[in-house]
């Protein structure tokens, strides 16, 4: 029995490069993350589909028909890009926050901590898992929106770039949140008190041109406004902000949060005693 194991050990010991080991580790984390949110699809994929359908019906169809046009387009068409982006960022954030904290809570994170996986690879794996869920929910919401409106596609590269960068940024946010969380309540505080208000005030349902100048300037400090508007630009070709400024801002924030996350991982904050 043990001899078989040892023979196998000697025969199968393969010299592998550091890169190939880290690549397999990265893929493993991503597959594990995708398997997790697919396994509990009733909690991860279904709720945003139902919520967004209700938004489409209530704000788009019922109320939207009385509002008329916003920035020169139908109200329903106006809110669809914002709602898709809202789904992407909340799900990217939520996936990483709940999964990483869950692993911490039931100590399965120790599997990774004893392994030779680099902190940057651990981070990349979890972030990619969050992006996968964010993009998948975004696609589901997009497909649902087609029932209510005819979506245009003004600039596909902008849509793809903004979607992925936004998902990455919020997945990083979820990761940092999970590192500092000590109980499950701690991973809902930031979404409830920061992300949701910023999303609602980020131009999902209105153009900031409707606001007085002072509040327009205040709105420009909201990073979600840039994501929603640049995504809307990719779909409809209308935006309240500069697309290049939005993409630059996303890249700067991603670089900043990535550095913080890797530093925290190396220190073992919230993980090692």
């Amino acid at each position: 029995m043990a001899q078989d194991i040892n023979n196998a050990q000697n025969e199968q010991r393969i010299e592998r490069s550091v890169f190939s080991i880290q690549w397999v580790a990265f893929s493993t984390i991503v597959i594990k993350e995708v398997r997790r949110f697919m396994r509990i699809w009733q909690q991860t994929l279904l709720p945003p589909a139902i919520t967004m359908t209700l938004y489409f019906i209530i704000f788009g169809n019922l109320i939207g028909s009385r509002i008329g046009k916003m920035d020169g387009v139908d109200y329903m068409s106006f809110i669809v890009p914002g709602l898709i982006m809202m789904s992407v960022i909340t799900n990217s954030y939520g996936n990483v926050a709940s999964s990483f904290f869950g692993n911490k809570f039931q100590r399965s994170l120790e599997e990774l901590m004893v392994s030779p996986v680099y902190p940057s690879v651990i981070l990349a794996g979890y972030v990619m898992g969050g992006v996968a869920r964010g993009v998948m929910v975004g696609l589901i919401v997009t497909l649902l929106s087609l029932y209510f409106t005819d979506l245009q596609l003004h600039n596909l590269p902008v849509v793809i770039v903004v979607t992925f960068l936004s998902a990455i940024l919020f997945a990083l946010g979820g990761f940092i949140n999970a590192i500092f969380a000590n109980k499950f309540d701690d991973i809902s505080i930031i979404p409830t008190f920061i992300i949701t208000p910023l999303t609602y005030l980020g131009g999902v349902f209105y153009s900031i041109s409707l606001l007085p100048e002072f509040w327009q300037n205040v709105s420009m400090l909201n990073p979600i406004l840039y994501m929603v508007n640049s995504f809307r630009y990719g779909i409809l070709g209308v935006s309240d902000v500069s697309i290049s400024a939005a993409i630059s801002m996303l890249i700067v924030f991603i670089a900043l949060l990535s550095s913080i996350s890797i530093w925290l991982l190396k220190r073992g904050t919230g993980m090692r005693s």
Partner: protein
Amino acid sequence: MTALSIQGLEKVYGNGFKALKGIDLTVKRGDFFALLGPNGAGKSTTLGIVSSLVQKTSGTVSIMGHDLVKDTFAAKQCLGVVPQEFNFNQFEKVYDIIITQAGYYGLTAKQVASHAETLLRALDLWDKRNESARMLSGGMKRRLMIARALIHKPQILILDEPTAGVDIELRRSMWEFMKKLNEEGTTIILTTHYLEEAEQLCKNIAIINNGEIVTNTSVKALLGQLKTETFVLDVDGDLEGLPELKDYQIRHVDNEHLEVVVDKGQGLNEVFSALTDAGIQVLSMRTKANRLEELFVDLVQDDNEVANQQTKEA
């Protein structure tokens, strides 16, 4: 050759508690090594630091010649860890847990498929491979952690209380598994509360108390410190007729059992002759287990007395 080398390892927790006071420890390659000590002595902290689960305050740890800080990647590849508490995702399937762990060491599902099957069969988990881990019994969960720790073929296996809460039959089958694994070349380091386990399995032993190594020697040498040995005799006959033997301490456990304390190098012939003369038949004989326990208690008590004395003097 050294499998594990620990030099001047210190750990001070945030609350000021000094869990390790600069310990030195060396484990040779191929060894079956036990780290023993009472609760809170520093065993789990030591293994936690070696496993990268606890941050050290100072000192160095080297695994198979690789410094854990300077050459983390190589050091971690040599190590398999079975912790005391269950630390896998209870909602994942048994097979997925094993394959995921292999992936963390750069091994794909295809590469480890046959090894995974060998391990799961050897640990009687093959039939459970598609079940969710939360459906397993406590013993199965513990064996799952052993299979998981071995999937990347580590050169050193760390086992923190591997048989805690496991029934006797299963414990013995796990001992056999670990013995064979060690015979085939894997260095095994374990902590246990079952001193019989350390006596049966281990070649070398260290006892830690109050964050310091009290003794670090071979099991044989440690047991050699025992001045006496106790034998338990199962007997049939009237024990009232047994004459007094001045060179032996004989204790009547009950009407069927005698305990005979024998000095080192002293024979038992005289006892057997006296029993035969008294018409008492010896049905079987065994050494009293937990010899190590006696030494353990003595060593830890001595160390505690020294520590208390030093505290008073301070």
